Structure formats: structure tokens, C-alpha cells
């Protein structure tokens, strides 16, 4: 790890100001950044910890019936506090990493990093969530821009994520055996006006919506509706030590069926 300065502001304004300095970088739960620093793969001069900002923590229901989660809320808190209103999301959070990860890692940190195998991007895209930052609101469909790439600009901090609460939802993660990140993760959410299906872990382009499955499920929300579909195209899916693109494509279909069957 290279030397750096650490500041821990208590407000978004202070954090943004601190991030204005050259080579300053925000630090949320640190579950990706700290290992990166330990490997000497990043050299920020200043880390701006977001953990002291009380305003971006917590889970609540908004007046219009959405679930609002502060960007600095840990997975462990989401797992507990979202359970009553949005069990599909709470269960996703409850299965991220291990307890140590869940007690440090945050939803904002995960979405800002946009690891192609992370779980939260599937929930955000699969619900059509709104990513609120200190500058603006970004629709999930516009937010994710490929592996580790998002619409966020410099010094832009995720303050809140608003999830439209589905009638039914479920997330199925098929774990890569070593990291236990998603080899494939599928989030299915059923709304009155249709079904959304988002897939993480599989594609070279990062999280994506499986539109054929969405159409099929919107007219018939059942596992059988997926049976008649071909698996998505595996040619642009990740192919590595743990599985080929075609294998991942096949698993997308299996996990989608299972998510539909388990949706509640």
C-alpha cells in the first residue's frame, strides 16, 4: 500500500470539497478498494471516507411507495431492514460475500464500482431503480455502462438508491466456486406493468437486461414461459477458468427459471 491521507467528512458538501483535490478518491466500505491498495494497484493521494456521513445511511419507504436506501448503507443493514417491504432485495444483500463483507460493504460502493460479477447491479437494473447522487438522479437503464463503468462523474457520490417495490421478485446467484461472486446472477421483478429481468456475472458488457425473458414473463409469469426460450447468446459472455460463455448463457436461463419459481 502506498501512503495516502485519510479524511472522514461528516457531510456530502465536505466530501465533495475534499474530492476536488487531485488524485483524491472516495472510500465507501472499502471491500474492493482496500485490497486494490494492498496490491499497490492504485495510488490515491487522499482517501475521502464516506462512512462518517450520517445522511446517506439507512433504509426507509418513500411517500410514493418506493424503498429508499442511503448510499452508505451496509449490505448487512439492507438485509435486515428491507426484509419486510422488499424480501427479494433483502435476500440478495444477505448473500453478498461473508458477514465481514456485509458489515463493511455498502450499496453505494458496490454500484459505483460496478464489478461485472457483483449482485447489486442486477437488483438496480432489474427494478429500474433510480440512482441519486449529490448532483442528479440517474435511471438504472442509463447508469450501467459496461464492466466497472458507470455514468458517475468525478466527485459524484451516490447518496441514495430508490427501488420501485415489485409485486414479486427474486434473485438467484450461481456462485463462482472460488470467489463466491456471481458466476451468473439473475434478478427477476414483477410489476403491474410488466416484468424486468437483469443478469449479472455473465456478460463482457456487465449487467444487462434479458429482454426476451422479460417479454415472455410479462405475458406469462411462470417458469414454463422460460422453457420455450433459447438461452441468450453466449458469444459475448465471459469465458474463463470457471466456465465458458455458452455455459454462462445456459446458466442464465436456469437461474431465470428458478428466480421466477421462487419469486415472492
Amino acid at each position, binding site marked *: *500500500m502506498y501512503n495516502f491521507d485519510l479524511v472522514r467528512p461528516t457531510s456530502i458538501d465536505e466530501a465533495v470539497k475534499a474530492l476536488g483535490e487531485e488524485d483524491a478518491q472516495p472510500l465507501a466500505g472499502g471491500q474492493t478498494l482496500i485490497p486494490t491498495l494492498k*496490491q*499497490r494497484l492504485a495510488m490515491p493521494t487522499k482517501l475521502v471516507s464516506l462512512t462518517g456521513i450520517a445522511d446517506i445511511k439507512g433504509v426507509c419507504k418513500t411517500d410514493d411507495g418506493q424503498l429508499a436506501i442511503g448510499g452508505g448503507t451496509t449490505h448487512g443493514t439492507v438485509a435486515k431492514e428491507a426484509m419486510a417491504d422488499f424480501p427479494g432485495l433483502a435476500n440478495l444483500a444477505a448473500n453478498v460475500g461473508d458477514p465481514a463483507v456485509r458489515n463493511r460493504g455498502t450499496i453505494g460502493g458496490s454500484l459505483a464500482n460496478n464489478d461485472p460479477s457483483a449482485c447489486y447491479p442486477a437488483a438496480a437494473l432489474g427494478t429500474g431503480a433510480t440512482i441519486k447522487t449529490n448532483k442528479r438522479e440517474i435511471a438504472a437503464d442509463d447508469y450501467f455502462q459496461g464492466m466497472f463503468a458507470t455514468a458517475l462523474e468525478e466527485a459524484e457520490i451516490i447518496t441514495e438508491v430508490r427501488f420501485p417495490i415489485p409485486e414479486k421478485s427474486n434473485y438467484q446467484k*450461481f456462485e463462482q*466456486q*472460488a*470467489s463466491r*461472486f456471481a*458466476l451468473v446472477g439473475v434478478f427477476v421483478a414483477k410489476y403491474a406493468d410488466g416484468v424486468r429481468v437483469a443478469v449479472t456475472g455473465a456478460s463482457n458488457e456487465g449487467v444487462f437486461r434479458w429482454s426476451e425473458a422479460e417479454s415472455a414473463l410479462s405475458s406469462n409469469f411462470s417458469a414454463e414461459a422460460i422453457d420455450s426460450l433459447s438461452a441468450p447468446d453466449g458469444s459475448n459472455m465471459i469465458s*474463463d*477458468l*470457471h*466456465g*465458458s460463455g455458452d*455455459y454462462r448463457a*445456459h*446458466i442464465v436461463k*436456469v437461474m431465470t427459471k428458478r428466480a421466477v419459481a421462487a419469486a415472492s
Partner: protein
Amino acid sequence: MPKDTGIGASTKRREDVRFLTGVGNYTDDVNIYGQAYVHFLRSDVAHGRIKNIDTSAASGMPGVVRIFTGADFEGVGGIPCGWQITDRHGNPMQEPAHPVLAQGKVRHVGDPIAAIVAETLEEARDAAEAIELDIEELPAVVDMKAAVADGATKVHDDLENNLCYDWGFVEENREAVDKAIKEAAHVTTLELVNNRLVANPMEPRVAVGDYNRADDMSTLYTTSQNPHVIRLLMGAFVLGIPEHKLRVVAPDVGGGFGTKIFHYAEEAFCTFAARQLKRAVKWTSSRSEAFMSDAHGRDHVTKIELALDKDNNFTAIRTETYANMGAYLSTFAPSVPTWLHGTLMAGNYKTPLIYVNVKAVFTNTVPVDAYRGAGRPEATFQLERVVDKAARELGVDPVALRRQNFITEFPYSTPVAVEYDTGDYDATMDKLQEIADFAGFEARRKESEKRGKLRGLGINCYIEACGIAPSNLVGQLGARAGLYESATVRVNATGGITVMTGSHSHGQGHETSFPQVVAEMLGIDASMVEIVHGDTANTPMGMGTYGSRSIAVGGSAMVRATEKIINKAKKIASHLLEASEADIELKDGQFTVAGTDKSVAWGDVTLAAYVPHNYPLEDIEPGLEETAFYDPANFTYPSGAYACEVEVDPETGKVTVERFAAADDFGNIINPMIVSGQVHGGIAQGVGQALLENCAYDENGQLLSASYMDYAMPRADDVPFYQVDHSCQTPCTHNPLGVKGCGEAGAIGSPPAVINAVIDALHSGGHTHVEHINMPATPARVWAAMQK
């Protein structure tokens, strides 16, 4: 009734108190006043020619003490290999130089190029980034068969080619085996890979070199399974320091699994640099470094043929194996695919003719050496897979086929040069069928099918050769060391006992089980016995712990020394009791004159030995301390039968281990709880090899599985609760305790059971075209195998 003390008692592990309360003393806990830290700059290419190393800028960086490169080791010895194999034509193996720091070429990712010694580790790492390297990248040799093809790039320019040796065993049997296979009623053939593994002990390797100018004494603290071996190899072959000026200490060691047997360059470097710099030098491996510098395990590519007659009796076995040595020969690497592998190819079966061919190959990968089981898992896996495949091809019950071919009379001389002293393979199979509940399997399979899962039952047997080894025999086979063990039993004046053993405990629980033996022999409480190990300054020369040898060889040495203690103590007691020595009996810590109530306590005798006021000084010396060296007459041969039940998810290919049963014959047992724990750990490692662990290189020699993000270790939820049993006991006939050793059995016996179960599950689901799946049987591989 289970005993609560002495031999046979499940005494709780006394060492766990310090481990679990955080007061163990591991090598990284050793900090010496004024120590500097070393960081190794390692190659990031698999193969390259070093054209220039410019350390001028780095040398001036803050905190840098000195930067060493290969040039500093001109005239210093290389890392030696401890075993020479003679090939099938009678020629010695090709043995390349192995410099402490790379000279001329780098040969694998992780090969150390420069060593930066600085006041702090971070300063050393900063300086490493300022070293300017000019390395001309060369084509990497990764695939073993390509490595021995004509015109392949050579890993070592001064060798003839990349073939370390071409070994045949038993060479005289070659033609007879060929003929038997040609004439067989049935031949089952299987090609398979025994996957490369990274040992990953919880504690990474650490070395602290120290030098005392006052007495010209070097000390190395290191994470080793055998400090005396390190002292001998490093002192005599690398640095030229005589043993009396070199002390090696291996304090608490957090797991070894074989990978801490070997003498590593980092140990020699820290000792060398401490002498050069006149201050202590410390290295602590990071986990990332461990992946590319700890010796790896396994990595065999094998073709095996099993010939049977018309009555399904095994008539011959022929195997051909390519064994990866990596870029250099690690300490015992050449012995693993040969003498620890070929001699086990008979398994539990009376196959009259066997021929084993092994081609050991150099590649641009991390050196490969012994890993828990070392050669024996590779032998067992191919044999038990091919037997299972034969049963399927012939349509016979796999248990019945095995039983029909079991060796049933002992001692038994195999056609591969070893003599099994005892065993009862039907007994362990009977026990297995009971504890694994074979009778209930079909019901469990139906229940799984209801849930859409395919259930499979896999069984296998194993035999292993432990208690390595008779020194004169291994000397003939090419070992450059003896393989006896030693113990000094020091009885203190007030009766407490300190046992200094050449064995080394790094998880095996010697501090608990060894005292149980001494306590049983003397009839005293085990708490009066303390075990000292791991320091060449206060233990007799011993060969350390590996190959399930500690109780069989080290324990035997301790028994012999304790017998000498008893003999002398009886002489003292006879003097104190004014009785004939022949009439003295030792029971429950009391010396009694037979047939009388005259007795003297253990503590009175020991006190007399050190305060010899009333003592037969004309006949015996004062004091009560004895040393014994024990050289075994034969290997020991633990054996057993294992059963695994898996479920396969036919939609994803994911395998889960639902049940696992192990019926082992370890001969006599000192501490059943510790033995069960050893089996549990071994099975977890075997399940890891079978389903999870995959050390993989790409075609450029880059390590793909270089961290826990890609290298899957077994976790608690990957394994079920085990049924283990070791009540079948045929004691070893040639050591005083009748023990056989248990450390490696689990890792040897479990991989074939798992894969046999996976194949059985797939066949039950109609995937009858699947003959084999290479380990690890990952979901993607199992799913791909199911697709026609």
C-alpha cells in the same frame, strides 16, 4: 470402555490452548532487534533472458540497506535436490542448477530476480519498483507433452532437453506386462489428469535470518516441517556453514501439508544476507507470493490400462505418466512420481504384473513437489478410477470386483517391490458398507430424484506406504538422506520428563499424543511429559514430519529411548529397594519388588539419579537421560475403504457432497480423536482436489489461479459431516507401537470416491456416455460432460 489416559485415550489437544488464545509463537512472531526486511522482486514473465538489472536508482531510495541480485550469489551454492532418480536406461536424471536468485534467465512467474533489503517492508517494496529490468521474453513451455516434443524451447539451456528422466518400474516386467495386456480377455483404459494444486497452509512461509558476530553463529527461524534437514541442506550445500555454527528453528508452524518440507531460496537468502549485513533479515510471504513461490502439488497426466482375465481377475496394469517438475527440482520432487507412486500401483489387489513408466518434465511453472499423500494419491486415483470403469464395462458390482481381487494373505510381496506386512481389506470394506449405509442408498437416490437431483455412490479402496523409511533401502533408491528418527528422553530430578524429538508438529498434535505413549510406558500422568521439537539447538538430529511418519518412526524412537530409561531406572530402584534388578516391576509409577509390598515411587528414583547420595555409582552413571535413533525395517501400510455420496444438479452440473464415510485401518491408535481429526482434514483436502481446486496456467505461463478469487479452497459448507471409523486394526508387525500412521489417508482415499460417485450419478440420470471427468469436477465441466 474408552480409556481416559495413556495410549488409546482421546485426550484433548494441549497445544490448542495457546493456538486458540492467540499466544502461539509462529515464525512471524519472531522479531529481532535491528532486523531489516526483505522484499523479493519476482519475475512476471514465465521465461526470459535477463539482459540487465539496473539497481542504481533503487539503491538510493529511502531506507534501502542493500539490493542483492544473482550476481551476489556467484560462488554460492544453489538450492540442492535431495533425491536422484536413475532412468530406465541406467542414467542419472538431468539435474539443473537452481540459483538462490535468478542468474541469466527467469524460468517461472515468481522466480526471484532481486532481493531488496530495507529498514521497512514498504521501503523495500518502493525500491523494488525503481529497479529497471531488461528481460527478453522467451517462449514459455507449459504443456508437458509439448515440452518433450522435438524442437521444444528448453527451460534450461545447458540440459539436453526438458526431460528430467524417463523412469520404468519394474523395467524387467515391461515385456511380460505388454504380453499380458495383449492376451487379456478384457482391457480397460483410462486417460486422466491429476490436477495441480497449491497447498495453501493457513500460515504463509516466513524466514528470519540472524547472525551473531560474537560467536560467528547463524540462526534461521523458518516455517519448516524439518529444521534439521534445512540445516543440513542449507549449511552443507548452499552457504558452506558447518552445523555447529548454524541453528535452525521452526517454532509453531501453522500447517505444512508437504510444502514446508523443502529448502527454499528465501531461507538461504535471509541467512546469507544476515551474515553479509551483520543484522537480522526477515521475510514474510504474502498470500499472492505463496501462490507463485510455494512448491505446488500433483500435476500428472496419465494413461492407465487394466487387464482382466475371463473371470475378472486382474492380470496386469500398465501406466504411463507425465509428471510436471516445474522449472527447477524442488527438494524431493523426483521421488514423488517414482518411488512414492510406482510402488503403490498394486493398491489392494493381487495383480501379478505391473509396469509403471514416468516421464518427469521441466516446464516454465512453479516447482512441483510433495503435497499431502505425495505420489500415493496419484497412484490411488488412477487405479481406483480404472477399476471402477472396468466394473461398469463388465457390468459387475464395483465392490464385488474389488473384493474378488483383494490381497488376503500377508505378508504380501507386490510386483512393485514392496512387502505389505498386515491388512484386512475385506474387514474395512465390511465396516464401510455398514457405516455408509449402503443398504439405504437406493431410498436416498429416489428421494434425490424427487427433488430433480441425480444421486451417485462412489467407493474406493486405498493402500499407502507410510513411516518413510528404511534408510538403506531409500539410499539404494536415490535418496541423499537417511530417514530414521530420533528422540531424547530427559527425566528431570523431580520426575517430570522432557522429550526432545526430531519429529515436528505443525498441526498433528504431537505435544498431546507423544506424552500419552511415555505416560503409558511409565504409568505416570501425561501432564508430567513435555514435548520439545523444532530447534536444532536442543533436539537430536531428526528428519522431521511428512509421509505420515511421526508416530511410526519418531514415536518408535521415543519408545526405544523410554525403554532405556526404564532399564536404568530399574537398576536404581533395585539399589534403593535392596532387591535383584530382575525382580523389579514398574506399574502405575511405582517400582515394586515382585511378590512383596516393598516399593519406591517414580519420583524417588529420579531424585536419586540426580542426587546420588545412596546410589550404585560403581555400576551406573548418575542422571536419567537417554537418546535413541530408530531406523524402520519397512514402510507401514495403512489401508481402508471410502464411500462418497454426491448429488448432481443436472441443470447446472453442480456437485454437492451429501455423505462421506471412511473405514481406515491404521493399526494401533494412540489418540482416536486426533486420528479422526486427521482423517477429517484429509478428506476435506481430497474433496477440494476432486471438486474445487484448480491451479491453472495459460499458454504463456501466466498463473490464472493466483489468488483465492480464482483458486477455490474447500470451505466448511463444501463438506458434509463424516462417518469415520478406525476400529479395523491390523497392527504393524515391525515397529514397537504397532502403529501405521494416519496423516495422509484422507487425502489419498477421497478423490476417487468423489469422482466415482459423480460418474455413478450421471449414469443414473442416463448420461451413460460419460466415462470420466477430470478434477476438479466443476459445475461447468460436469455440465459439459453431460452434453453429448
